[in-house]
């Protein structure tokens, strides 16, 4: 900082912009979470005090740091949100429906204002929302309160540098106490010789021995006289976060280094194998054991790095509930959102790229899938439409479902639209997979009004591409009048994957294992030709074959046997024909950024340790290739 020039203040604070955005993100997450809980209390006579305190503090902090970076719109908006919260907290205003709406709208706008600054876009006006917040009706809340009977303890903690070094400090002590009961007081006190201590008052039902066990850490617990007390309003105590914020780029760098280590280890392994022939076993074996030890440690290291990258998917689910509420209000629909599996973890990189596709699917479900109240009631359905978002892990993949109980997709309408757009949907009944392909075809999915009537369709091509680019897969299940479910399947993380190494005409390729359903050996004599397509019998049906050698325009020897990898879903599975399967191993995925090296069917490259580059196959692209052209 140039101290002689006070006008540099703005520049001075600009160096904190990354911290500012990160802290804003953290608070917005906390705020959205609190709003979800607050919504349940709309109309209630008394609102959970600690919820209001937390919200208040987040707005207060956002106001403070926004002012520092000179983002006046965010500072003012946060100020008005904070003021409204203050009125709620002081009880001069009860939480009403319009008040909550204004709060929700204010938070969305605050996020937009911050993002506009982040992306150098014009800052939206805040006037309208501020007016709404100020106009939120002033209703005098009724009085209420519940009482329960518990035991009350006084706990004294004297901090010392020694205890602090053992991580026993006012925060960890408080966190432990909060686990076993409800803290109703936490204050510093001064003892005889001027020594500082902290006095906590805890109401809890736990046994005396639990509290006495705390004494090992210098805590003194004492039961207070009137063991039966009325539960007082708890003092809100939020343990400060121990979370460290790390830029995703730095984690990518860490992951890259781990990847390099994996490759070096593989190289070491190969060299050891060669050494085995010329080294006495007594000398070779310890080397081999060390190498295996490194392999195990590398696996642990890799898993730890991946864990650092993982975030809970619940955060974006919560964002979706806001989108749904806004859309529902605009369209006059009633919608209940059900979330489950929000604690499921997914790579931060994937989460960010999943936002838009998920948002699209949720919007479509609300706008086109779920009906208005009158239409639902006419069909004997419950007035409130149900939208459920769920997540779960299955092996190395995460499965996300977006389900509605709306009108379902009209196959006949989709068929008509497809024909009108020059597509050939065939004359048979369109099954779910074919339906998804149709509504995701660029011609159909980008059209607007007419396709809306068909129940789905805006931007589905973008959604499908985005998910497949991430190595994921989307499927659809829809029943007329009963609803639609989209199932997204994604890898938990990118960068390092299990793969099958296959050989075709002496060339090696890596096939990501998560996309392979089954592997088997086939006699060359058992293949047949059908309408220019090579097929083999498979599970009572036929499986179209895709010769990898043909895809990459190589010759292939017609051996007696070859191997088939089954890729894709049951209904549109394809058999990938390769000469041999060499091994199964971990590979480090590197994107091919050179446009000359980018070709259809190739997802990236990897090194297997012998310093030769092996191409990684793009299973989704290969499957599409097989569906569109005969092989």
């Amino acid at each position, binding site marked *: 900082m140039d101290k002689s020039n006070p006008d540099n203040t703005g520049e001075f604070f600009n160096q904190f912009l990354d911290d500012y955005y*990160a*802290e804003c993100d953290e608070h917005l997450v906390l705020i959205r979470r609190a709003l979800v809980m607050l919504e349940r209390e709309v109309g209630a006579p008394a609102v959970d005090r600690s919820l209001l305190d937390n919200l208040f503090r987040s707005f207060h902090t956002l106001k403070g*740091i926004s002012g520092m970076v000179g983002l006046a719109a965010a500072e003012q908006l946060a100020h008005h949100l904070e003021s409204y919260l203050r009125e709620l907290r002081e009880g001069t205003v009860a939480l009403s429906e319009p008040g909550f709406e204004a709060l929700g709208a204010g938070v969305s706008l605050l996020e937009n204002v911050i993002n506009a600054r982040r992306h150098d876009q014009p800052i939206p006006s805040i006037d309208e929302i501020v007016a709404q917040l100020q106009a939120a009706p002033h209703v005098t809340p009724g009085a209420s309160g519940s009482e329960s009977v518990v035991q009350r303890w006084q706990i004294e903690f004297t901090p010392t540098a020694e205890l602090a070094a053992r991580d026993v400090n006012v*925060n960890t002590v408080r966190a432990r106490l909060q686990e076993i009961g409800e803290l109703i007081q936490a204050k510093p006190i*001064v003892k005889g010789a*001027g020594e500082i201590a902290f006095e906590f008052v805890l109401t809890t039902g736990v046994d005396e021995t639990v509290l006495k066990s705390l004494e090992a850490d210098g805590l003194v617990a004492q039961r207070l006289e009137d063991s039966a007390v009325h539960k007082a309003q708890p003092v809100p105590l939020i343990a400060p976060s121990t979370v460290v914020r790390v830029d995703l780029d730095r984690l990518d760098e860490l992951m890259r280094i781990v990847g390099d280590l994996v490759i070096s280890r593989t190289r070491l392994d190969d060299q050891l194998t060669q050494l085995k022939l010329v080294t006495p076993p007594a000398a070779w074996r310890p080397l081999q054991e060390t190498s295996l030890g490194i392999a195990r440690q590398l696996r642990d290291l890799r898993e730890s790095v991946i864990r650092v990258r993982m975030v809970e998917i619940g955060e974006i689910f919560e964002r979706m509930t806001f989108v749904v509420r806004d859309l529902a209000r605009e369209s006059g629909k009633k919608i209940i959102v059900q979330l489950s599996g929000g604690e499921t973890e997914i790579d931060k990189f994937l989460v960010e790229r999943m936002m838009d596709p998920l948002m699209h699917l949720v919007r479509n479900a609300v706008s086109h899938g779920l009906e208005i109240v009158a239409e639902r009631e006419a069909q004997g359905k419950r007035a409130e439409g149900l939208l459920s978002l769920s997540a779960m892990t299955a092996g190395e993949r995460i499965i996300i479902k977006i389900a509605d109980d709306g009108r379902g997709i009209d196959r006949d309408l989709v068929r008509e639209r497809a024909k009108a757009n020059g597509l050939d949907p065939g004359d048979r009944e369109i099954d779910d997979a074919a339906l998804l392909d149709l509504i995701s075809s660029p011609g159909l999915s980008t059209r607007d009004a007419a396709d809306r009537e068909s129940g789905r369709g805006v931007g589905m091509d973008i959604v499908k591409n985005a998910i497949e680019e991430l190595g994921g897969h989307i499927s659809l299940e829809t029943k007329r009048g009963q609803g639609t479910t989209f199932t997204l399947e994604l890898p938990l993380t990118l960068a390092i994957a299990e793969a099958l190494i296959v050989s075709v005409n002496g060339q090696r390729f890596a096939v990501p294992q998560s996309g392979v359903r089954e592997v088997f050996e086939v006699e060359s004599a058992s293949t047949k030709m059908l309408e220019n397509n090579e097929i083999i019998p498979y599970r009572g049906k036929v499986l179209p074959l895709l010769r990898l050698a043909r895809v990459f325009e190589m010759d292939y020897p017609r051996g007696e046997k070859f191997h088939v990898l089954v890729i894709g879903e049951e209904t549109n599975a394809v058999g990938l024909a390769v000469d041999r399967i060499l091994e199964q191993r971990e590979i480090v995925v590197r994107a091919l950024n050179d446009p000359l090296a980018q070709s259809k069917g190739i997802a990236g490259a990897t090194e297997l340790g012998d310093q030769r580059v092996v191409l990684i196959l793009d299973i989704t692209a290969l499957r599409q290739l097989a569906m569109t052209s005969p092989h």
Partner: protein
Amino acid sequence: MPDEPRTNNILVVDDSPTMRRMVITSLGSLRTVKSSQAGSGLEAIERLAIEPVDLMVLDLNMPDMHGMEVIDFVRRHQSYRNIPIVVLTTKGEESSRSQALAAGANRYLTKPFDPRQLADIVGSLLKTS
């Protein structure tokens, strides 16, 4: 090094880590200063108990113990009552200025703050205390 001026420890108390970094960076121009941080009022008082503190930069609106209570506590404690306190709080609570000064704060600044002004004030308080 007998002629080297003593290093002063400044305790920066604010629940926002970004704000703490801004304050600490602003104080970086004072060469004889090191800093420690606390994210809440209780944490601040614990810092006092386990390390020497020469000056506090204190936010008011914080979780679990308001800055005003921290001032109260510090001013009533025989060992800490002379520690200079600079209150650094978000604009908009003008009534708290007189309260904080009456409770014993040495200076009262509002956010957004001028980094140079903060450093000057802290520097002069350290010189006179």
